[in-house]
């Protein structure tokens, strides 16, 4: 790409990105009357990151992750900072369209677009990009990044997760990744360093868990659009600051419960969100759900609960036990549809639907995302059998289906109201 065109592309994309981020933040902040005060930290964080040229980064090495499957504990133990690269920007989606077929998934195209321009969202300086070999599109995107000049490590993943062979394969793959990390940063992953990384990320995870558990309260105390912003912030925010901000938020939410100050009406239908991940600024579908009067009380997406739900469990403080434990944390509980069996995801959804007393499920598939589209039928059938209504939505990062989607989402929420009223 010649220099002048590249500069123009960077400038125009930057303008578009700031426009869409501003609009999403406006909807998230201004269209709801009951935002927790502690959310201001996150609103400001996104405003600075997307509308104000990005927050200042410290001098540590930065390792980009193309998926939730890369064990962040190892990256931190090697003295580097992990950055989740998956992008939710329509502007980057358009910039990335030239590298992928037209029908490819928005998320992959947007991530490629962001990385091709090296301007924002954490792509300015990356010492290594780790590409877990999940779906076809991400695999090929990882290869393209090498052409862009990034140093890429392909973290090989098994196509199944339940067998012992898969587990051994994955553990060997993770060990190899640890060696690549040490070579990149020049820092040895010792048991002390890994224990510290497991502890600090574990504290972040338990802060998130508190928020997650509070959503079981019969009257919704916090909206999904805020929870998704919190979990999205984990992609790039400083770990300790993030944990402190989430703790403060959970304290405030707990206060709401004690003073019986609910975040939304008690007749608001409770929604479980699943499928392709909503990533800022593309919070289109979650916002439509909550603008229509529903509340997302829980989700099963890799940009939110799947990112933060599980803890590392090891018995002995020795690397031969800790590294496999870190590997297991990523593989075993993962309900991504790239794996052979969809049983675990179905089980997880039924379990979440029951424990969070949801009235309905919204299933998002990005146009071009085969794995999620393929599982939609079996998930839908299992939910029908459990008497839980599901709305399936195929969408992308473009704004042009907004009007039509709002009608569908409103109708779905209206159809759940009777159920929600009976429950309350």
């Amino acid at each position, binding site marked *: 790409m010649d220099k002048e065109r590249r500069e123009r592309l960077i400038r125009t994309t930057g303008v578009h990105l700031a426009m869409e981020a501003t609009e999403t933040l406006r909807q998230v902040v201004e269209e709801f009357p009951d935002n927790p005060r502690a959310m201001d930290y996150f609103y400001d964080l996104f405003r600075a990151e997307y509308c104000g040229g990005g927050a200042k980064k410290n001098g540590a090495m930065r390792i980009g992750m193309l998926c939730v499957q890369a064990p962040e504990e190892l990256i931190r133990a090697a003295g580097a900072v992990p950055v989740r690269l998956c992008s939710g920007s329509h502007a980057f989606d358009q910039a990335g369209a030239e590298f992928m077929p037209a029908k490819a998934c928005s998320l992959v195209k947007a991530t490629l677009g962001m990385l091709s321009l090296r301007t924002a969202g954490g792509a300015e300086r990356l010492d290594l990009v780790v590409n877990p070999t999940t779906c076809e599109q991400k695999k090929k995107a990882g290869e393209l990044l090498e052409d862009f000049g990034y140093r890429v490590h392909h973290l090989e993943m098994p196509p199944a997760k339940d067998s012992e062979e898969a587990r051994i394969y994955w553990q060997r793959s993770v060990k190899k990744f640890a060696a690549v990390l040490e070579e990149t940063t020049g820092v040895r992953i010792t048991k002390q360093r890994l224990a510290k990384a497991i502890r600090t990320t574990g504290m972040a995870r338990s802060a998130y868990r508190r928020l997650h558990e509070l959503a079981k309260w019969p009257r919704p105390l916090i909206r999904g659009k805020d929870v998704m912003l919190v979990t999205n912030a984990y992609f790039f925010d400083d770990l300790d600051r993030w944990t402190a901000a989430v703790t403060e938020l959970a304290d405030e939410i707990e206060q709401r419960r004690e003073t019986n100050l609910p975040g939304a009406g008690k007749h608001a239908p409770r929604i479980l969100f699943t499928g392709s991940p909503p990533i800022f600024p593309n919070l289109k579908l979650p916002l439509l759900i909550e603008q229509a009067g529903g509340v997302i009380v829980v989700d099963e997406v890799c940009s939110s609960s799947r990112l933060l739900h599980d803890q590392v469990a090891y018995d002995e403080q020795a690397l031969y036990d800790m590294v496999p434990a870190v590997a297991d944390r990523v593989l075993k509980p993962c309900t991504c549809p790239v794996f052979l069996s969809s049983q675990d995801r179905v089980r997880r959804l039924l379990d979440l639907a029951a424990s969070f007393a949801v009235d309905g499920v919204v299933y998002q598939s990005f146009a071009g995302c085969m794995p999620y589209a393929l599982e939609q039928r079996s998930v839908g059938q299992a939910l029908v059998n459990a008497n839980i*209504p599901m709305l399936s939505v195929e969408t992308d990062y473009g704004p042009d289906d907004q009007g*039509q989607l709002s*009608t*569908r989402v409103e*109708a779905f929420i*209206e*159809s759940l109201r*009777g159920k929600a009223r009976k429950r309350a």
Partner: protein
Amino acid sequence: MRYFAGIDMGSTAIKIALVDQQGSLSGHTVVPTGSFFQKNTLEALQLLLRERGIERSDVAYLLSTGYGRKLLPEADETISEITANAAGARAIAGSAAIRTIINIGGQDSKVLLLDADGHIRNFVMNDKCAAGTGRFLEMTARNLGTDVGELGNLHCRSSGAPLSITSTCTVFAESEIISLLARGHGKEELVAGVHYSIARRIVRLARQIGIEDRVFFDGGPALNSGMVAALEDELMLQVVVPAAPQLTTAIGAATLARTAWIDTGEQVNA
């Protein structure tokens, strides 16, 4: 006497229905949408009220629905046309046990699956383009130099096999229709072909959620007998078409307005 108004602000026409306290229909009107939703709606409402001798202050609750539902600040509440359509079919068909509703509107089409009580169990809508909607019929009529109201007659007069229209995009189909006409094909077979193409498309959509007997067909295009015949062929089922298929959603909204008013009253008294 109190009245309740349901206003269905569609992309092609504005439909207004009034019901009284007993829930019986006491007036209705259909006017073209035009460019000024709010102004045209209020004028149509005023005219209807004057015609029926009803004061504006006797309209206790006004519920708007349809594509332009949010553009009417005078409405007490808005509701999606999907919920309103199901309520309308319930009100009109009564005990006829409708399980599927097929609605073709001006720029979208949808299929609703109902449970035994007439409540929505599942629904699908077409994707973001105008193929298989009323727009497609308007475009066909325009190219044939006729009125949309004539399409049914043309279809019924056709003697040969319906022509196959392969384009699903309204824009491409337009050039396909022009070239079919240029090649000397009959208008009648062409119109029948257009109806089958729309019917096939909506039946494919309906199969995504399943089709259960009985099927209720509404929306403006249900006035077209050719469209009804093609749909019945593709569904391999007989469909129920209400006397005024354009009005189902407005009647549903008016019925829901009445329920909403009664519910509010109960809350006030409680």
